[in-house]
Each structure stands twice: as structure tokens, then as C-alpha cells.
């Protein structure tokens, strides 16, 4: 196991997570209630209570590279149970943003799917399922993962061959534009 140099902890990381989430993470006393209630602990590489501990210790790299960030379903169990009233789900959300910004998303396919989804929304004003799936499958190279779902979805009329543009899709596209300009 890697030895953490606590003196080399990144204090700015804690401050940044705190200011962006509006939470006081110094109140966390590691009771473990968040981990105890989390329905995804089985899949996490770092349980959520330890994510909180690593943020306190300023371990930016370990937190932002964690797979747990991307497996979190934002179900808010952790937030509901926290005795110190920390919005833990919000903290996970902030960490996801910071991971994307620093380009260290550990779950590649999750990022690809999110990107494909957002691109679809930008182009059509809403999700175009077939286009989304095609883009995701091509980019990820996972051709056979979801193929079995195809016929069922088609039969239930859930996959259209043509996108359904919405009214005002230009405005939606402009939201993306404004975001990129950083407005």
C-alpha cells in the first residue's frame, strides 16, 4: 500500500471542495454512516467515508482518480444519514466536476457516455437515442455490450431511426456555447 505523506497534503484541495460545495468537511468525524447506507459501496474502489477522509487529508490525486465518483448514483442516502449535516452527495458531485476539469476521469466509458449524451442534446435539443448509442459504441469500442437490448427497444418503439428535434433547439445549443465561453 502506498504511504501517504500527510505533510504534502494539498490544503487548497480541501478548501476548493469546501467552497465549491458549500460544505464544512472539517466536521466529518468518520462515523461511517454514509458508507453504511450507500447502495453502491460494493462497486466502489474507495468507500464514500474514505473519500471524505482523503479530501480532509488533501489527497487530490487519489480522490479525483477514484472510480467511486463515477459510480455514485446521487441517491442522497449519505446526505440523509450524515449526523453532521454534510451534503455528501453534493461533495461527490463537486469532485466529479473537478475530475473532469483536471482530465482524470477514471471510468472512461462513463465519461464517453456522458459526452455522447451531451453532444446529442446539443445537436438535437434532446437525446437522440440511436445516435447516442451509435456514438458511444463506436467511441468505446464495446460493440456487443448492449446489442441484445436493440430488438426489444425497437419493438417497444423506444429507438427511433430519426431524431426528434424540439422547438428552440438553437437556444439549447446556445446554452452549451455560453458554458464554453465560461459565462
Amino acid at each position: 500500500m502506498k504511504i501517504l505523506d500527510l505533510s504534502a497534503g494539498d490544503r487548497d484541495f480541501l478548501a476548493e471542495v469546501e467552497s465549491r460545495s458549500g460544505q464544512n468537511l472539517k466536521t466529518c468525524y468518520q462515523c461511517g454512516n454514509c458508507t453504511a447506507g450507500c447502495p453502491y459501496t460494493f462497486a466502489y474502489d474507495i468507500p464514500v467515508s474514505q473519500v471524505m477522509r482523503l479530501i480532509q487529508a488533501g489527497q487530490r490525486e487519489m480522490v479525483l482518480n477514484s472510480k467511486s465518483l463515477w459510480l455514485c448514483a446521487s441517491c442522497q442516502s449519505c446526505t440523509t444519514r450524515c449526523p453532521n449535516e454534510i451534503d455528501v452527495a453534493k461533495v461527490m458531485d463537486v469532485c466529479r466536476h473537478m475530475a473532469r476539469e483536471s482530465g482524470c476521469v477514471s471510468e472512461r466509458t462513463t465519461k464517453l457516455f456522458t459526452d455522447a449524451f451531451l453532444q446529442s442534446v446539443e445537436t438535437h435539443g434532446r437525446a437522440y437515442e440511436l445516435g447516442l448509442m451509435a456514438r458511444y459504441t463506436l467511441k468505446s469500442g464495446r460493440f456487443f455490450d448492449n446489442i441484445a437490448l436493440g430488438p426489444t427497444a425497437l419493438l417497444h418503439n423506444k429507438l427511433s431511426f430519426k431524431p426528434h428535434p424540439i422547438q428552440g433547439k438553437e437556444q439549447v445549443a446556445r446554452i452549451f456555447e455560453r458554458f464554453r465561453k465560461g459565462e
Partner: protein
Amino acid sequence: MRIGVFICHCGSNIAGTVDCESVVEIAAGFPEVVYATDSMYTCSEPGQEGIITAIHEHNLDGVVVASCSPRMHEPTFRRAVERAGLNRYMFEMANIREHVSWIGKDKAHNTNKAADLVLMAVEKLRRNRPLVAKSFTTVKKVLVIGGGVAGIQAALDCADGGLDVVMVERDQSIGGKMAKLDKTFPTIDCSSCVLGPKMVDIAQHEKISLYACSEVESVSGYVGNFSVTIRRRATYVDWTKCTGCGVCTEKCPSKRSPDPFNEFLGTTTSINIPFPQAIPKKAAINPDTCMKLQKGKCGICAKVCPVGCIDYEQQDELVTVEVGAIVVATGYDLFDWHKYPQYGEGRYPDVITSLQYERLLSASGPTGGHIKRPSDGKEPKNVVFIQCVGSRDRSVDRPYCSGFCCMYTAKQAILTKDHIPDSQSFVFYMDIRAPGKGYDEFTRRAMEEYGAQYVRGRVAMIYPHGDQLIVRGADTLAGTQVEVPADLVVLATGVEASQGAVKLGETLRVVPDQFGFFVESHPKLKPVETNTAGVYLAGACQGPKDIPTSVGQGSAAAAKALGLLSKEQLESDPAVSKVNVNRCVGCQKCIDTCPFGAIKAVTDRMGRLKAEVIETVCQGCGICTVTCPQGAIQLEHFTDNQILAEVNALCPPKMNNVSFE
């Protein structure tokens, strides 16, 4: 007048951010100041000697000390000037520590403010006059409110010390929470075996009178001379005749009365004696469930009672006692765990509190000392203990540690193994707090010798599965989620201030903190005193406490009461209100506003109504002085002239374009 000013450095506490030498220089120029100096620690022996020497050498007749808050050291300095031959009220204190040096960092501003405060004190002192305390006799009797172990100890110590004691207990029997416990940590000795004899002593001590089923209704008077009204609730049994034979409880047909002594685990009869060792061992009727009192039919207890002590017509009775001191030992309540959704909010009968578990363990409990779970009476194999339920949790407004749950949980894990050798205990904890003598060794024994499995983490969910409960929690040391199929879940419910503590506090003029625990006079040096003279605290009413600490505090409170009442006479504070009869118009507004009933109306020899202050009752609060439309009633040592002189010192009249000349 010849005034001396002493500026204290308080080490670096004051001198660190106040230029004390400059304050001395400025103060030397104040009116009537003939001597000014500074010292390192004015409260120390040489510091006090310095004051006394200066009084003699410079022929001072008034002294100002600029130092800390008067709470701690005003009495110290008053004694010092008295030793030098001055009247102790010819002394003033300026607080340049709490009000200046500790709160500001700017040395120049601090120095100015300190000088201003000294000037205010000097201006007030110029208008002080010598006051002489009056003395009064005391009642050699103590009221103890609450008959738990702390109150019992306080009562016995006071009585053994020669004082008469009146004990008031809200419940039907004394003993409090300790009487409900099975065994006590860290020695595993039987709770009722060690408490029982003390309870009997209360009943048999010739100097103690016990009022059970009673509450304090009102308190008036002052230290040494309190007048207390006690409400004795109707028990519908004449306790002067009842022998506690128990025949009525056997024959009572109404058997579904809630049983608070057994923490509502079972039911009891409407007329009952709560437990075999109850003191007083007298029966009482629960009027809510008694068929005779509810519907007018039954009356069996009256028929079977061999001494004819049942009285369905009994009413509440008010009793007034005069006491010299009061010990408050009202104890604590348990946190209502139903606020937590994760423990089922009461849906699962096999999730119980630790005190309910004590009753299951106790031989006098509803199961006769066999651990049977409430749902089906089966003996549990896997027992899960969850600690910190309502402790250290800001989200339910209980941020404090209840202190003794770690220990009783370890005890219950040990007893579980003793009762059921093939059982396994699991303890979910956050931190183990075991700082007492032999305490940490005790928790280690629970783990090492009795095999209790301690899991560091919280429980997020309890749900039923077959006839078991699945407890899902975290093991933060392993960094994983854990599950236990439990037969019984015991919640270590935290400590809360006793219900009614706030109301009692108002009656006694004792301040509760934000959680309802009574505030002691000083957190370190006056742990059992309150800010009301003659009222002392013992046990968990002041904050969560285990048995040894409660007993220690009971004795400490008794020592304080004995010390107070060992004096033949007490001195009253002469800083009380005084009526100028020439100006009083007899409007009696002061009588209406006085919270202590210290002012009475008298008729002078011309037949005119006048107010008169009862000096020993007046607490010097000053409400009457601001009420009087004539300015006829003045608080000695804090007259309008003295307070205005202080204000004028701070804001000289010419600056406000107002002339007071």
C-alpha cells in the same frame, strides 16, 4: 477623597495588548487619584499586600483595581481593602481583560479603552459610600429535589451532618435510574444491592422526611430562608396507614396499566408498588387506568385492603416547608430514538433501548432475569448494540457525548454472554470513551474475554428478514459495509435533560443551558454551586454523569449545604434597594414589578402609603429603581447618580451639548 488605582498585567493576558504603564500615567491625572501603579498579578499575595501597603502609606480611602471580571476576584479585593481598614464597598473594579485585552488586538485603542474604563470606575468610586452588611439567621434544613442516587447521597450526607432534610421525589419510589439497572460497571456488582441499603437509610433516617409522588410547586425567599411549596399528588392511598403488604396489587383486576418502572416493556396493575425494594413501599393508584376512578365500578382494592387505606376521594395536597438550602438532583431522561428513521421508528418490537435491556437482564424485571426478546419471547443469539443513539449528533441537536454509554454497552455485552453463553454480541461504535478508573480495562475485557465483536462504524438500516432483523452498517476500519442478522437490537440511547428541568429552573432561578442542563457557577472551581446563593446541583441535572461522579457530586453539594448552614448567621449583601420616603408617593408600582416580593406597602404616621424594602429578601436586581416614576427608590451602590457619573465619564456632557450643571 484619596483614591489609589492599581493596573494589573495579568501576566501577558492584559499587558500583551494594553500598555499598562500608559494607563497608569493617564490614571494618575484622574480626579482625586493620589496614587497609581501597576503590578504583574494584583490578585496574588504580594499584589494584595501592595494594595494594603499603599492604602496605609498614601492614606487612601478608596481603591480601583483594573484587571479581570469581578465575578472571580471582586470578593478577593474587597477582603484586601477591608484588611487595610477600609469599608469593602469603597472599592471598584474595572474589567480590562474580558472587556478589553482579550477581545481587541489594537494596542493603542485598547490602552485608550482601558483608561476610559478606569475613569468610569474612579467616577463611580467618588460617589460610593461605606455600606454595612446586615446579618440574619438561617433555617437548618435542606431540601433535596430528586431521589436518584445523587439526591440520596446528598440527603444522607446532610442528615448525617446534623441537618434536617426534606426529599421530594416525582415518582412513586426513590432510586431513580440506578434502581432500574441490573448490574453496574466496571465491577459488575448488583445495582439494587448497593443502592437498596441507601434507599432504606433514607426511609429510616430520623432527620429525613420523604415526599414521594410530589413536586416542587414554588420557591420564595433567599439563601438561608427559602419557603418551598410542595405539591403532593393524590395517590388515592392513605400512606400513613398503608403497610405495603401488596394484597391490593394481587387482587386488582385492571392489569393493563403502563409500567414506567419496567420501561413500558410490560404492563402492571392500576394499583401497584413499582418494585420490591421500593421506598417508600406504599401502593398508589394510576387514575388513568383505575376502573373505579374512571367508571365508578370496581372498588376491589378498598374491599381487600386489611388496613382500609384506600381513599378514592383523595386530592392533591400542598405542603409548605422552610429550608435554608436546596440541592437540585433531578437527573436526566433518555433521548427519544424514534426520531431516527434508520432504526425503524418503533416498527420492530425487537429494537429496544439500553434501559429496557437492563430490565430484561434484571431478576426483578418483567422476564425474571431471562433475556427474552419482546416479539416472540425467544432467547436471542445475535445481539447488536448500537452506540451514540442521540449522542454526538448535530442533526438531532445533540452534539454532546453522553459519557457513560460506552461503558454500559460493554457491561451489557458481558452480561449477555453470561446469560446466554452461545450468544454473540456486536457493538457498533464511533469511539470508545472509557476514561474512568478501571474503565478501559473493562471495555477490553468485553472484547478479549467475552468475545464481543466491536465494529467501528454506524448502522444505516435495520430491516426484517424472517424472524430476524438485518442490521446493515459500515466497518470503517475495514473500509467496507457489513451486515449482521440480529435477533435483538439494543440502542445505547443518549442522555437528555430531564423533562420539566427548564420549568423547575425558572422556579429556582437556576439557568439551564441550551440543552436544558443546569449551569454551574464556575465550570472548574464551582461545579456544584449555582448563581443563586444557597441552591446547589448534584448529578446528571448538570450534565451527563455516571454513578460514581453523581455520588461524588451529591456529597459535594451536601458539603456546600453543610458549610453554608454551619454558620449561625449569614450576612446579607447591603447593595439593595432603599426607599426615600420623602419622595415616595405610594403608587406601589415597585411592589408589582419586584420579582422577589421584597417590597411591601407600609403606612407612615401621617397615614400615607409608602414602599418599604425587606432588605434580606431584596436581591439588588434594580428593576424597582427604573420603575419608580419619582426616582424615590434607589439601589445602594448603584444609584442613578453613580451610574450617570460613569456615563458622563465616558461621554463628557459638553460633547453632547447638554449641560448637567
